[in-house]
């Protein structure tokens, strides 16, 4: 019993099929609870007015935008070191979800910034590093799309993800040096133990964050399943074509799982 048994596509398909419905329902429930609670049943902030309600979208999506990249980094490392195909496909599956999360964080931030800061966009360190993260996602996805040989694509995108992570981190601190920020500090207590958000706002925010996290996991599972199936489909089609071109097409295709 170890986590590596899920590296077997068949095992992964079985477990994820069992896991996916419950996870999706749970994710939907959490997101709905967090957003409905946040939208309908929280008071307005005395300074920000009703725009404080945007926090239930902005903070969770920003959190998942970063965590999605971290997950891709871990998955890429596993692929490069242990060469489990499921891992590479999971990284590929996660990228578009992370991209959407980044866009949501940027869009909600811009919409919130217009009345609060008086501008949709400012070259603030946090905003700038998110824009850079957005570019990294675009490049990663584009590289996957561009390369035809799937294993080579997995290799190269993994290397890009590793190098990109280093440079993303570097940019994060470089932009601090470059411009003073408008953006407020973190609203989620992790290390400080102190919280800048009052309880009335915080409880629905937790629901929303957990919900976005679960939603991300569910989407990645679903998309990874799709990628595995697509891989198998291409293998079967290729075998079929090979059989068609041969004179005697009665060679039995072996029943191996996709790879």
């Amino acid at each position, binding site marked *: 019993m170890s986590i590596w048994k899920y590296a077997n596509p068949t095992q992964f398909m079985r477990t994820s099929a069992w896991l996916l419905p419950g996870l999706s329902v749970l994710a939907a429930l959490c997101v709905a609870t967090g957003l409905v609670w946040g939208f309908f049943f929280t008071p307005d902030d005395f300074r920000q007015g*009703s725009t404080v309600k945007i926090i239930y979208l902005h903070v969770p999506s920003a959190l998942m935008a970063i965590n999605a990249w971290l997950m891709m980094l871990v998955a890429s490392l596993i692929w490069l070191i242990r060469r489990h195909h499921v891992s590479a496909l999971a990284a590929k599956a996660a990228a578009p979800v992370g991209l959407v999360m980044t866009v949501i964080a940027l869009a909600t931030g811009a919409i919130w910034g217009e009345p609060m800061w008086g501008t949709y966009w400012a070259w603030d360190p946090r905003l700038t590093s998110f824009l850079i993260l957005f570019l990294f996602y675009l490049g990663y996805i584009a590289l996957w799309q561009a390369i035809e040989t799937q294993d080579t694509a997995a290799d190269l995108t993994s290397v890009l993800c590793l190098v990109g992570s280093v440079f993303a981190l570097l940019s994060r601190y470089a932009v601090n040096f470059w411009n003073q920020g408008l953006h407020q500090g973190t609203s989620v207590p992790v290390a400080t133990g102190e919280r800048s958000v009052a309880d009335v706002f915080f409880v629905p925010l937790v629901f929303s964050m957990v919900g976005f996290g679960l939603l991300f996991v569910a*989407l990645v599972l679903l998309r990874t399943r799709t990628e595995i199936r697509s891989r198998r*489909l291409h293998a079967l089609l290729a075998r079929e074509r090979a059989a068609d071109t041969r004179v005697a097409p009665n060679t039995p295709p072996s029943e191996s799982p996709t790879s």
Partner: protein
Amino acid sequence: MIPDLGKYQDTVLSAYGISLLLLAAIIGLSIWRARAVKRQLDATEARTNKRQ
């Protein structure tokens, strides 16, 4: 139904609108592609099994 959002109504509603739209898009796209690939795979597998 919709709570009183004061003068920031457009701001809040558009933020929620855009975000939910984007989420719906990525979820819809994932499910649609999952179905399409599963259908093609099932068809191809049936064909392969018949040949044997």
